[in-house]
């Protein structure tokens, strides 16, 4: 397997085609095996380890079945308790969950949309992303609004690629209000 795949990059657009053409001349010099050195495990060892892994997994699967029911009940009970506490404390819905307290530092715009993108318009997202807001700032603003979100650490490349949780309009308005009242805009 070698690098240097020539493909229908022109279908992306003209600029990309030119860029790929130039880049491919570099990539074509490099064998895939040197870019990502291959496994050193022999086929025989690989199959032996795989068989052992499968057998171990099947053993765990049997054990898992015994506990599945009780685990599901425990999880459901836990979720109910969390929702109850949140509703009683903040008066808002189950999408409001604790933020990651360890989160700090600059957030890439695309990741930022994952964090506060819930229910916001694309324009609002772009404004927020352009502001280079730090995660700490977000956490503070959200905390001031008594809003705590699950931080989705899934890396996202598209502004529209954020998970939409169902924050109600009051909660969204509270978040926006807090953000707008700070220096972030």
């Amino acid at each position, binding site marked *: *397997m070698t*690098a240097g*795949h020539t*493909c229908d*990059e022109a*279908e*992306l*657009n003209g600029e*990309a085609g030119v*860029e*790929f053409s*130039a*880049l491919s*001349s*570099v*990539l074509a*010099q*490099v*064998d*895939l095996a*040197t*870019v*990502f*050195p*291959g*496994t050193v*495990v022999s*086929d025989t060892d*690989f*199959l032996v*380890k*795989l068989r052992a*892994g*499968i057998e171990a*997994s*099947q053993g765990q*699967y049997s054990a898992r079945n015994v506990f599945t029911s009780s685990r599901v009940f425990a999880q459901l009970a836990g979720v109910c308790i969390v929702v109850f506490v949140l509703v009683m404390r903040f008066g808002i819905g189950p999408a409001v969950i604790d933020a*990651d307290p*360890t*989160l*700090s*530092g600059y957030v890439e715009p*695309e990741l930022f949309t994952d964090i506060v993108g819930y229910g916001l318009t694309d324009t609002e997202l772009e404004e927020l992303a352009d502001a280079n807001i730090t995660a700490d700032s977000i956490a503070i603003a959200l905390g001031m609004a008594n809003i705590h979100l699950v931080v989705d*650490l*899934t*890396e*996202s*490349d*598209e502004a529209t*690629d954020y998970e939409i949780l169902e924050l109600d309009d009051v909660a969204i308005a509270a978040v926006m209000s807090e953000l707008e009242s700070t220096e972030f805009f």
Partner: protein
Amino acid sequence: MDEQLMRGEETDSELIRRFQAGEQQAFNLLALRHRRAVFVTIVGLTGDADEAEDLTQETFIKAFEALGAFRGESGFYTWLYRIAVNLSLNRLRKRKVRSFFGLEGAAAALPADQTADAPLELGELSARLRAAIQKLPVKQRTVFILRHFQELPHAEIAEIMDRDVGTIKANYFQAVRKLRLWLAPYVKGDE
């Protein structure tokens, strides 16, 4: 090992049928046939050969467990890559939780003093290309590896990643643009 199995004359579909008929040895050939491509994909995503070994094994364990119910609605390797990519992304996610900016370490591996003045040895070029690929955002990295190194069509990558084809093309475009930027000294030399 069964020599007939190892001749590689049978298609993936035939081997899957044999496996589903109870011949578990047929899985061995499927695993051997695809293990290197799966490994390369995973190591490209994770940047860690040891981790890739583990995840490759985990990929095939999951495939073994689920192959009985495989209906062939997508190609076997598409299905297999989907398992591998999902496992890799999960691992990267866990890594990121442990160290929020963990990927910056990989980015820092790209030599800062790169210049176009001196021709690079292939080994050095490989290292810089590897570092540049690792520096890509994970989705762009995934698309680039599947597209460029595994030569999968956009439609199959979209199926593997559960995305629209347009999104895949956009990711690929961004990946190529960034790689060109980061590898500019070497690209310029060829223009």
